[in-house]
Structure formats: C-alpha cells, structure tokens
C-alpha cells in the first residue's frame, strides 16, 4: 500500500506571526519547521503501510526558497521520499491553487492508494485544501477522520461531526484529512535522522508539474486593508495568597451568575 502525505513547513508557531508589509501575506522567510498537525498524518501513513505489510510513504510539500527542513523531519520519522514544489511564481497562491499544485505533485508520484493531509495548517488555516485536492483528483474523501483503518481494501474511518461522529466507509483510492490526536506521532530516532539526510527529495517548479502558476494575479482575492482589532483591556491581576478563590467568588456574585 502506497500512501502520500501532504505536509506543510511553517514558521515556528511559538514565534509571533507577521505580515509582509508589501504583500499583506504571512511572512514565511525565516526557518520553517514541520507543522505539528502534519506529524499525525505522517504517523498514520507509516502505521497503515506497516499494517498492509508493504509499500511506502511519500511526502509532498509546497514551500518557498527550496526549504526542506520540515520535510526532513517527516523523512526521519520513516517516509521514503518526497517532492517539494518551490517556485517564486507560486507566492501568494490561494488555497485552490495550492490544492491544484499538490494534486499535480501527487500525480507525479503516480498517485497512491491513500492521500493524507491534516484538517488545516497551523499558520494559514484556510482548511479547504484537502477536500479541494480530492475534487481536483476526482477522489472520494473523508475529512476530519479521528480513527482510521483499512479493512479488506476498504477505508473505515470515524469522522468528527458537530454532534459526535459518523462511521464512514470509503473505496480506495481516496483522500482523508486527519485530526490531531488520531495517532501518537513517533519521535524520529537518531538513525532515522541520519537516514533522512540521504533520502530523495525532488524539487520541482509549477511548470514542471504543468500547473499554470496563479500567484498574486490568479488568487481571485486581494487584501485591501489590515487593521488592529479593538484590544481587550487587562483587568485586575492578583497573586494567589491562598485566599484568591474569594476574589473569583465575589466576581461571579457581582455578575449575578451564582
């Protein structure tokens, strides 16, 4: 069983985000790391391939400046190879263009039995790319999967809903998006980290993939204005002296909620 995982390399979420003053898009020029959300998909893929008893996990990513640091983390976890789409012409791409690019990258790998993505990235979080990719590729999809197994060539997943969850069965090939916590991602071993350095990552451009780079012009949307939201003011801050619970009780009483 062959699985492709879409991974995103993002600025460290622990650092404050910033917008590029000229383009009003997220700054992504510093060091990029593997989006935490994607570690679950990589782990899921490795476990499914393992359970199937054969095949391999490939990763695909789109990032500026030939960045592969985050992809190496996925390779160190056990993925076999990757494709990185890196092309200045893709800067400013919207979710739809991103989905078309990733779909073309998946096709360059010859497709797969299953394509896995996170439900959304931690930096841009448009949250539509997996389902858009499925549509571009003409595949069925199960989004927000929180439990996944392959049983007799059929994908069986529990899909998060507003009220609980649905059990869903899906023919392969298919695409799924997985929620955080679907599996416990492994930490790359030292051996894995060393091996990852020599695993193949093919760097391609949009035109290599036959995708017309849309970039700024093709995004179908344009940022007009960036403004600061009205800030909430901090209120009273007290150090706990063992009796501060009384402050909370008084606060709640004052609001007449107790």
């Amino acid at each position, binding site marked *: 069983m062959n699985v492709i995982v879409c991974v995103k390399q993002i600025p460290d979420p622990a650092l404050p985000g910033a917008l590029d003053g000229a383009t009003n898009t997220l700054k992504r020029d510093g060091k990029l790391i593997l989006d935490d959300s994607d570690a679950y998909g990589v782990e899921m893929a490795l476990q499914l391939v393992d359970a199937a008893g054969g095949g391999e996990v490939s990763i695909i990513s789109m990032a500026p400046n030939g960045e592969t640091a985050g992809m190496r983390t996925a390779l160190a976890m056990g993925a076999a190879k990757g494709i990185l789409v890196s092309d200045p012409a893709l800067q400013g791409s919207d979710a739809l263009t991103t989905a078309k690019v990733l779909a073309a990258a998946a096709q360059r790998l010859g497709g797969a039995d299953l394509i896995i993505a996170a439900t959304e990235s931690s930096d841009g979080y*448009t949250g539509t790319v997996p389902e858009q990719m499925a549509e571009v590729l003409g595949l069925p999809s199960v989004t927000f999967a929180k439990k996944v197994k392959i049983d007799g060539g059929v994908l069986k997943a529990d899909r998060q809903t507003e009220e609980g969850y*649905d059990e*869903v069965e899906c023919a392969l090939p298919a695409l799924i998006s997985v929620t955080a916590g679907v599996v416990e991602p492994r930490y790359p071993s030292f051996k894995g980290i060393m091996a990852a350095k020599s695993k193949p990552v093919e760097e391609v451009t949009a035109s290599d993939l036959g995708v017309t780079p849309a970039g700024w012009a093709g995004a179908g949307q*344009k940022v007009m204005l960036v403004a600061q*939201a009205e800030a909430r003011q901090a209120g009273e801050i007290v150090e706990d002296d063992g009796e501060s619970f009384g402050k909370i009780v008084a606060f709640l009483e004052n*609001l007449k909620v107790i």
Partner: protein
Amino acid sequence: MAINSVWVFAQVTNGAATTGTLELLTKARSLSPNVTAVLGGDASGVAAQLGEFGATKVYATGDLAGKLPGVAVAGAMKAIIDGGDKPDLILFPQNYEGRDVLARLSVKLNKSVLTNSIDVAVDGDSVNATTPIFGGNTLVTTTFTGEGPYLVAFRPKSFAAEASGGAPAAIAAASVPDLGATGGAKVTAVHVEESTGPKLDEANIVVSGGRGLGEADKYAMIEELAKLLKGAPGASRAIVDAGWVPYSYQVGQTGKVVKPSVYIAAGISGATQHMVGMKGAKNIIAINKDKEAPIFGIADLGIVGDVHKVLPKLIEALKGR
C-alpha cells in the same frame, strides 16, 4: 457589482435549522432581497423557519442516503448554477460540512475561497470579507476580484440571528448528479455523543482547562466546577491533542468559538490558537502560574497561582453555597 442573489448553505439538526444557518440568513438578507438556502436533505419541516429568517427559496436535495454532504451538495449547487440560476455570493458556516461543500464547489467553479471570516460587506462595486488573524488582534479585509459567485465561510456567531417574519421559503428540488468515484464514501452509522449540561458553544458559563492541569485526571476539577456553575467544560488544543478530552471540548481557532457571559481559563497560557475562540466572552477569569502568560492580557480577573491550589478551594466555596 451589486449583489443580486445570495445563497446560504443551510444545515438542519433535530428537525430545525441550525443557529449558524439562521445567523447566515440574517446577514444574507441585509445584502440582498433574493436569499436562497441550499440544503442537503429534506426541506419540508424547515421551509417556514428558513423563510422567517429571510430565505425566499430553498433548494433541497432530499435524503442524501449516506452520501457525505461535501460532494453531494456541491454537486447539486454546481448543477443549479449550470442550469442558469447563478448567485453572486454564497455563505457557508465554518464547520465540518460547510468546509467540505465550500471546498468541493470551489474546484467545480474554479473560484477562490475565503474562510474564517467574521463579516462581509458590499462597497460599491466590491465585495469585502473581514477575517481576524493572529488570534484576532489583526483584522484583514479582502476583496474578491473577477466574477462571482464569491465563496466565503464564516466563523460561528459572526452575526446575530434575527427573524424577519418572512413567509415560508418556496421549496425547489435540487438533484445530486452522478458523483462517480468522488461519491465513494458512505456513512454507515451515526453516533451522537451524549453530553449532560449545556452545549459548549451555547453555555452561559464556560470553564476550560489546559496543560497547566498537569495530568489528565485533574480535568475532573474542570468538569466539577463547570457543573457547579451550570456551565460547560472546555479545553485548550494542547490537552485535546494529548488525548485527555475529546476534540468536541476544544475551544479555539480549530475548535469551537464560544461567547459566554463568563469564561474561566484554568492552566491555559493563552496561545493565539486558543484566544481566537474565547476572546468574545463578556467576562474572562484566568488562573495561571506564569504571570507573563498572554491570557492575563485579556483577563478581567487574573489569578497568578497554581490551579491545583485555587480550584479545589473555589469548588469547596461554591459547594457550600
């Protein structure tokens, strides 16, 4: 361009339109007199309610027979548009089904999407959507370029739902075209997770716990406090990812958006991911060991202290009342 026609992707649970649907209809009718709801399911029980909130017409697919709404409703929408009824703007709720329908349709129409928005306005010839980023401290206004339909998803509670007293929406059948391979997923069982007490996104009081609780067992304090206050328990993404509580408890950018009267954050530092989901609360109480924690920047009452010491005393005090 002026907006002539607006669609709303409508959802129904337990025989009634969801609050999110009514919010979007209320907004839609402020933009255009021609508001159409599109529903994956049967509309006979909700046409009156949809009309009351502003829909003049509802396209309904009828029972989806286990098909996932993403592919099915997007396919039906595309068929209606190809048939000549083309809206200028389609509003979606930012939730599981809304995102799926939006994403599928965007590819079918080859149109860009905007998600996580909180407002939309028509300004002369342009349609502008407002989206908060960086935990809500920055607002970005984006305008659509080119021809519609423009596709936008809105965070819950972006608009107040207000009835207009309109007549029942006229029901029109929408057929789901042959989905081919894309229709390969089928729902085989539906599970509703029973929860006692008020729903997280509707509760007047929300008590949320985070990593500062230290271990999964300590979440019981959050549940007990929430129960005492007749509120709902919530959680930060950190402890949901850690598997302490189900995803349905998560408050934040990738979880629920809550706007209760009182929000109590216990052992939550206030990552932007979390703050975007709760900063709309009327009153915020934060308890955290680290006095530099960002949550204190938005708290009306901040207690710098150990949740393991403060919460038990608070619970005792409330029990004694």
